[in-house]
């Protein structure tokens, strides 16, 4: 398949792996921030191709994984209100809240529907004018523009029964929290699809302030290996900077139109991340002009903040402090079918990827 096979070519991959092996001089720890990278790394068996002194750790870039229990509990509370339809991307329905999940609510009578985009949710609202349709907006700068488009469309068509419950987040504050909190790290494999929207410049503060190497990376095996080679070279020359490996999709300034939509529809807010707690200005909420589409505008629900299951080490995994294999319940009482922590739910979660793909499990 064109534009895929070129980046999976066995000869090219072997050559890149040899170049990495020839370049390493010490131990290196790199964090892949994006959940898409975590899934790709394990799906293509990348760790098997790397020398042992390169360690890849997963970061907080799986949207489902970092969505706090309080958000799930809030969505569950809305699902119990009469005439409410909850619309959500598929993974989120299985994430355990403090007492239930959206999947269990659906089985016991709430109307929870899986959609592939916000526009599908808007369509459901138009078809069910007597109901209130709430779309659960999750994801980073990658998916938030699509939600922004949906909101503007709802405004244009004057759909009065469509609402957003936003857990949209932005990446840089979480990455800063990781390096500030002392996770030992030589460099970031920076999220390629986030950067396609925002531009690579949003990562400039990392080498400047924290001396951390950064390479904005694509999602195929050749992309990942080339990025790792670039990171190794940056570390070796002690010259950290933001480089773009994924230059077929990413520019320094990003997608202007998508950024404009984000700026118009959303504004920054403090947001709660699973594993991190509250991070300042790391969330996106609807700007004042669009407040009437906020789920809170037709009904407010109260949920309390619960402590997460103590046996589960998702919080440490999301901050890059531990690996799924360090968790006492990994593959013992926490499985993809019956997840205890969010990292086991999503295909982009580190635990799910380890469980499904990792050879030395």
């Amino acid at each position: 398949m064109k534009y895929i096979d070129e980046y999976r070519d066995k000869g090219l991959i072997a050559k890149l792996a040899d170049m990495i092996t020839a370049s390493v001089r010490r131990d290196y720890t790199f964090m892949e921030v994006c959940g898409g990278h975590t899934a790709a790394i394990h799906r293509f068996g990348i760790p098997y191709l790397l020398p042992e002194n390169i360690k890849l750790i997963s970061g907080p870039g799986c949207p489902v994984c970092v969505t706090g229990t309080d958000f799930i509990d809030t969505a569950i509370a809305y699902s119990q209100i009469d005439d409410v339809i909850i619309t959500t991307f598929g993974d989120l329905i299985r994430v355990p809240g403090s007492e239930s999940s959206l999947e269990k609510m659906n089985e016991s009578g709430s109307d929870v529907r899986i959609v592939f985009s916000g526009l599908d949710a808007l369509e459901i609202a138009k078809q069910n004018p007597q109901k209130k349709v709430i779309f659960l907006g999750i994801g980073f700068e990658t998916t938030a523009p699509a939600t922004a488009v949906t909101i503007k469309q709802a405004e244009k068509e004057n759909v009065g029964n469509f609402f957003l419950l936003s857990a949209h987040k932005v990446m840089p504050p979480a990455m800063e929290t990781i390096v500030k909190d002392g996770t030992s790290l030589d460099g970031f494999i920076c999220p390629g699809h986030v950067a396609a929207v925002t531009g690579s410049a949003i990562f400039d503060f990392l080498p400047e302030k924290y001396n951390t190497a950064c390479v904005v990376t694509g999602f195929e095996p050749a992309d990942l290996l080339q990025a790792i080679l670039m990171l190794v070279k940056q570390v070796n020359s002690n010259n950290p900077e933001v480089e773009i490996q994924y230059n077929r999709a990413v520019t320094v300034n990003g997608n202007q139109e998508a950024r404009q939509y984000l700026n118009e529809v959303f504004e920054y807010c403090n947001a709660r991340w699973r594993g991190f707690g509250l991070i300042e200005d790391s969330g996106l909420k609807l700007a004042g002009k669009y407040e009437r589409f906020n789920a809170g505008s037709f009904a407010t629900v109260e949920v309390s903040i619960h402590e997460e299951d103590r046996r589960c080490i998702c919080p440490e995994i999301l901050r890059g402090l531990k690996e799924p294999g360090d968790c006492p319940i990994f593959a013992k009482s926490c499985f993809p079918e019956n997840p205890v922590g969010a990292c086991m739910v999503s295909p982009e979660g580190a635990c799910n990827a380890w469980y499904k793909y990792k050879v030395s499990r």
Partner: protein
Amino acid sequence: MSGNITLNHGEGGRRTHELIRDVFMKKFGMVEPLTDSAILEGSLVFTTDAYVVDPLFFPGGNIGKLAVCGTVNDLAVSGALPEYIACSFIIEEGFPVNDLLVIVDSMAEAAENAGVRIVAGDTKVVGKGKCDKMFITTSGTGMLDVAKKYISTGERIKPGDRLIINGSLGNHAIAVLGARKQLSFTTPVSSDCAPLNHMIGEVLNNCNGVLFMRDLTRGGLGGVLNELSEIMGNGIVINESSIPVDEPVRGVCEILGFDPLYLANEGKVLIVSSKGMENQILDLLRQDPLGKDSAIIGEVTADKGGKVIIETASGGRRIIDMPSGVQLPRIC
């Protein structure tokens, strides 16, 4: 088991196996190994399968053709010659007779192609909204050469034996998905739904190397390889670049995040060949149009309690786990 039945219990993965082991086998006093068909006294083989595919019509087939081919294939992969089929229909009030006639015609045609006779049946009609248009259950019997009983249990498989499949994976699942009109694009993919008994019969009649067969339906190749490694207690290594997948199927999988290894097929079989016999089996398979794209995809390893490992097309290695979670409900 407790709680409620979820869609997950019907996906052919880990939860389905739990349901079968902990409820059905336990209560019915059935014993391992789980095979596609039951081998009864003498050489009689018996199987049954329910069909709930949504939609009823899809490129390459419909629920009727599927119901006949599926049961024929379950018998054939046990090494048996399929002979007789019984079918039950559950039909929703208001179902168009014209659609019924098309479905029944396909069943008659599929039975003729497979050389089996449909000899018994039952019809129930339920009120509107009490079932989704039509469900069909087929049961079938066949005759097994008792000397070939080992094929259904896999008891003769040894490390070094080779794995063969008869063509590209995932076409049925993608064709059904496309027919649901949930995709915002069209695909040229047709279901591979077909009776495999003649092709398998040719192989068995001309070669003694077949040690095990399983059709690659719900759960796909990934599911069957995990079942096989569990039955044997040995590991399996397969090579991704040797596994045929048609370009349009690969494309849809890339876009939607499906793995073709887990997608359902309705005309594909995994054959374990004893080492050294694989090329003879491959030649026999390729003489049949349903096996023209057959390929050797891997082998059984000596790893005790081993896993199913895939060497990826780009040279990495990873596990293929038992499928889990709800993938594509009502695919067959």
